[in-house]
């Protein structure tokens, strides 16, 4: 065991992807990423999490000192791993960006289902905004449109850059955008012009939704899966007339941030990690959702069981923790 390198594990369970990062315990976060993995969640967070852990085990050279989870699936992942910290992705993204550049003043983050804008001053988050109630203008939508146009998502941005006259696409709502795009296709516009129009409308939509009244000062970081899209990068830079910086590990910043927060938390409290260990991937997890019938709220409860032992449940409005599934 002694030959293994000491690392901290960060997991960001998002709607589209689940990201894993191992952070060297001895180095600062920005250059301490010794291993990372980006997996599609495919609506199966438990399986995806196991797959990621299996990949870590296979390497056989890491000793995990602590673990943190973030993202919309953070509670599930946190319960499975017995993570040391379970925290929201805004705090995690900010922590990772600050470790790369302590001066960062603006973070644009576009993920699968959320888009966020984080404003920082003197290394502290002072304001943030997230898209309101729907997933318009986020990664899932780009994904879906790339699929519909038969363009691999990683070529989407480059194609946008070939455009000489982007068409105008309605960006407020994905349903509007889609019908607008189909219509422009039927009219015979070139695909690259449509793709460029879509990127431009997403940038416009992002700024008018999230940035209203906020001062976007440089340095500006662009992170999250969508930051890989060079078309989006270009339209952000053109619209804001400021350089857009893409951090080295832009696609896993949430995971980096949460690994780092796990380390800080354990170090400052002098605590031992509660991480269950990689053996957990050989356990059988059963998660089950049902509607609780104990009161008229009829909450949608999810329970998770490890090898037949109850681990955790959530979804109840009353805060009741425990097994209340009569059939379970």
């Amino acid at each position, binding site marked *: 065991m002694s030959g293994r390198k000491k690392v901290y594990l960060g997991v960001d369970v998002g709607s589209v992807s689940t990201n894993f990062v191992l952070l060297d315990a001895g180095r600062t976060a920005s250059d301490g990423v010794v291993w990372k993995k980006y997996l599609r969640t495919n609506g199966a967070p438990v399986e995806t999490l196991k797959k990621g852990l299996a990949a870590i085990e296979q390497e056989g050279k890491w000793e995990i000192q602590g673990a943190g989870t973030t993202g919309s699936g953070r509670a599930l992942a946190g319960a499975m791993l017995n993570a040391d910290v379970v*925290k929201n992705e805004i705090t995690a993204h900010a922590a990772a960006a600050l470790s790369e550049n302590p001066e960062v003043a603006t973070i644009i983050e576009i993920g699968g289902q959320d888009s966020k804008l984080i404003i920082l001053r003197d290394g502290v*988050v002072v304001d943030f*905004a*997230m898209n309101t*109630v729907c997933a318009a203008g986020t990664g899932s939508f780009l994904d879906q449109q790339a699929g519909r146009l038969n363009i691999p998502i990683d070529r989407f941005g480059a194609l946008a850059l070939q455009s000489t006259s982007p068409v105008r696409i309605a960006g407020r709502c994905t349903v509007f955008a889609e019908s607008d795009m189909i219509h422009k296709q039927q009219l015979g516009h070139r695909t690259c012009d449509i793709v460029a129009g879509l990127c431009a409308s997403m940038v416009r939509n992002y700024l008018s939704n999230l940035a209203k009244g906020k001062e976007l000062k440089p340095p500006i970081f662009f992170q999250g899966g969508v930051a890989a899209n060079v078309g989006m990068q270009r339209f952000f830079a053109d619209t804001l007339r400021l350089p857009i910086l893409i951090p080295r590990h832009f696609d896993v910043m949430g995971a980096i941030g949460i690994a780092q927060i796990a380390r800080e938390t354990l170090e400052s409290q002098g605590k031992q990690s509660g991480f269950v260990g990689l053996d957990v991937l050989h356990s059988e997890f059963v998660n089950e959702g049902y509607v609780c019938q104990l009161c008229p709220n*009829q909450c949608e409860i999810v329970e998770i069981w490890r090898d037949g032992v109850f681990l955790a449940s959530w979804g109840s409005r009353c805060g009741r923790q425990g097994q209340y599934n009569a059939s379970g």
Partner: protein
Amino acid sequence: MGFRVVVSPPTNKQILEWGLNACVDGACLAVKSMVGHSRALSEQGITLLFVPKIVSVAPGEYTCANFLGLPDLLRQYLPSSTTILAPTLDARKSLGALTQSYVRLGLPFASRGAVKRAWRAACQAQQTLEKSLQATQPHRGRLRILLLGPRYLIDDAYLSNNLYSHLQTLGAELHTSAQVPETVARELGKALDKPLFWSDTRRSVGALEHFIQRVDGVINVAPFGCGAESFASALIARRCREKKVAMLDLIVDEHTSEVGIITRLEAFCDLLERKKSG
């Protein structure tokens, strides 16, 4: 006046579902919930429903136009055997008009003397309630947060996705506009260049002035697509920026998953903690 008053139960899944199924999707969450509540009473066999047509509750001001339409909306929705008592409450010109409306409403059911006594008792009860709300001390917490927005949303645990309890778990001490006497809120609301004509919005702005120097952060809650709130949230945001107080806009709709709300609240409280400590 000798009537037995039945109040609909706290909002629950069934109530909201009735409302969602009955309304056009442009209606706001509060209207949908209101429709569901009327159905809940109707299901209990209630045939006399009190839903006033609230035009205005203070001189020179209006309430949201949805309030005005509620009785007509419910008349279309509920079985025809249901009678809706819908006095027009319009204090735009004077507060005295409210008294008149209520007295007129009561006269078919009781003598003038009994109706007036009932009205006085109602005013008394209202005052007692407001006083007790003003006097209620919030749970102590590390972070002092002012919670603004329509009270029919933030005080409804179901519609607001348990906002109060989530914030208290995160260590917040919650202050609301209910703690601010109307006279104070009114006076402070005058700080704006132009008087606001929606009573709720004006009250929010007044409460903000009252608390802005004494809280760590402000959360404004609004239903998705609310017109009056779009003004309120812009005004509140501007004032908070001037005073360098952190503010969070929270929009609620029919989502039953709490993850989105918890993420925002948690991040906001993290932000306040960090600001405080350094």
